[in-house]
């Protein structure tokens, strides 16, 4: 779950990381209640990167200027992400910008600091970047080592180290996937502040952080209705542009099935991984979600039952076909209780493909037949 800048900064502040004074507004006229002095910075709150380049940050010289700009900014959509609100801050005099983040490193299997003496940058394409594995248990000297490594000295070394230590403790205590300050600024008055912040909370850990209860529903602004539905049902859906809806169990198998569809000349319409051990109900919901996508002409189901019981899947298929007899369906089903499933589906008139490649070929063929023709 990605938080908005204003939420991230609120959490920073609660953990002792200094941020500039700010107000959040959702209407241009709310700017009248903001008494931070001019010039002001207006920043759109979106769950997408590239905000600055897209013009999502504007400076206002006075109230009138601000209201005009706020009106436009509040309507912005950046990379498909809608503006949720504006964050208003005084325009600060910046002496220096620094980059600082904590995240998890796959290769090392541990948390790492990423830092750079140049901030406000795109860290992925920057050169002057330090990554540092974080020991478990944590010690405060790590923040000092990091400060040293990016070349800080004197008072700034200690201030930055303190901030890095606080950021890591926040990262650990709230089960974050990413805690990023970009840029961390040094003002002309030697204050160190988080000018922009990004927090990604690990979805798997939400259940043990009561402070985030209910946040997931309010942070799905950029998802389609079908993606929201999948999330609630515990299904993994990614929608694509093709016309073959794909439903499998297991992420790797679903991707492999997509790849095969493409290799055999078809166009995948979605990725839907129903996970391991899905029962009739969950499988039926998965079928309905794929069915609801108007772009999909054919649904390709590929279940290789390890934990998943084929008869549960077959029951879902029978129920689905009763509801939507017109829907083109190609099913490959193999594994646990396969014989029972085969019998059930034979009664419904559905042909089963035991071989994956044969099933994919059939689905691709079907996808090229004009809509309306039944399986």
């Amino acid at each position, binding site marked *: 779950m990605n938080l908005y800048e204003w939420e991230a900064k609120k959490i920073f502040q609660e953990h002792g990381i200094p941020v500039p004074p700010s107000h959040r507004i959702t209407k241009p006229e709310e700017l009248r209640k903001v008494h931070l002095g001019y010039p002001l910075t207006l920043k759109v709150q979106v769950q997408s990167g590239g905000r600055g380049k897209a013009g999502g940050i504007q400076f206002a010289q006075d109230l009138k200027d601000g209201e005009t700009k706020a009106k436009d900014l509040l309507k912005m959509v950046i990379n498909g992400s809608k503006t949720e609100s504006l964050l208003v801050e005084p325009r600060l005099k910046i002496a220096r910008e620094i980059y600082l983040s904590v995240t*998890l490193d*796959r*290769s090392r*299997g*541990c*948390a790492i600091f990423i830092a750079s003496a140049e901030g406000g940058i795109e860290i*992925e394409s920057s050169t002057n970047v330090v990554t540092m594995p974080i020991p*478990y248990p944590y010690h405060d000297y790590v923040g000092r080592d990091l400060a040293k490594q990016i070349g800080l000295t004197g008072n700034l070394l200690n201030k930055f180290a303190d901030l890095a230590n606080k950021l890591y403790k926040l990262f*650990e205590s709230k*089960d974050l*996937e990413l805690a990023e300050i970009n840029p961390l600024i040094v003002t002309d008055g030697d204050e160190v502040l988080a000018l922009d912040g990004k927090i990604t909370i*690990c979805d*798997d*850990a939400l*259940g*043990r952080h009561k402070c985030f209860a209910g946040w997931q529903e309010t942070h799905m602004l950029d998802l389609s209705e079908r993606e929201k539905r999948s999330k609630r049902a515990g299904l*993994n859906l*990614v929608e*694509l542009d093709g016309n073959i809806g794909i439903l*499998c*169990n*297991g*992420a*790797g*198998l*679903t*991707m*492999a099935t*997509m*790849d*095969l*569809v*493409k*290799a055999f000349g078809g166009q*995948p319409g979605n*990725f839907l*991984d129903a*996970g*391991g*051990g899905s029962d009739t109900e969950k499988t039926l919901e998965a079928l309905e979600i794929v069915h609801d996508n108007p772009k999909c002409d054919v649904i390709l189901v590929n279940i*290789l*039952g*390890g*934990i998943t019981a084929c008869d549960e899947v077959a029951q879902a298929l029978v129920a689905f076909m009763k509801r939507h007899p017109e829907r083109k369906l190609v099913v490959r089903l*193999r*594994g*646990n209780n396969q014989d029972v499933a085969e019998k059930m589906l034979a009664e419904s008139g559905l042909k089963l493909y035991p071989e*994956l*490649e044969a099933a994919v070929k059939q689905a691709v063929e079907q996808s090229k037949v004009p809509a309306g023709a039944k399986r």
Partner: protein
Amino acid sequence: MILINKDTKVIVQGATGKMGSAHTKRMIAYGTKVVGGVTPGKGGTKIEGIPVFDTVKEAFQATGATTSVIFVPPFLALDAGSEALDAGAELIVLITEGIPPQDAAKLVAQVKAKGAKLIGPNCPGVITPGECLIGILPGSIFKSGPVGMVSRSGTLTYEIALALTESGLGQSTCVGVGGDPIKGMGYEEALSLFKDDAKTEVIVLIGEIGGTAEEEAAAYIKANVKKPVVAYIAGQTAPPGKRMGHAGAIISGGKGTAQSKIEAFEKAGIKVAKTPSEVAKFVAEATKQVARA
């Protein structure tokens, strides 16, 4: 074969839960030496004919096992893994899905410090066909033979194992290392075992988008592995920026694409199959070459 064999004794943490009990039954049916279950508060009872203990320490002491397979809920997994480790576990297979990655990182740190082995989390487990199955893999699709397999995916592994088995190509050991970004054993550790395993003639590496583990594995193979390796990468058609089911399967910032992984393998002289059936074909060819050599 690597990691496990017919003498491997296993205890099951979370043996009396729904998933734990179902798979305890299956593992026993396959022939795995499941010697004990662990469920705090249920010590002294039995499940599927095996004794249940309150603690891992007790279970290990009573049975002589040093391998544990874990089926506990996600938020209890770090504790369960630490318990096994501190009780002297040499191999831990952590099946549980949805473990917060920071918990996984803390467990990995301890595993490294103790020099133990961890497979998972969020993995199907490991099988040495005909001898021992630990985890949730469907035993019936595997058969004993010369192919070592290591994979980040569950059902895709079954698909490819099926293709191999139906082509008459059995497996030495098959390791599902799991789809999470933070995990115990990775490709390199599995490859380092397969390369010295007398039974393994050919190695199949199943990868997917996300991260750089496949690229690192390609470099490792080029430098260290003399045996033929066949690779397969899932997600060639996956769009960037979207998590494809597995927590680790995501192309972000232009990194982790299937293309990059395929190129890395090809550059290292490793054949990359485009379909599961092609994996079997390439393996068959490699086996013949090995036989000729």
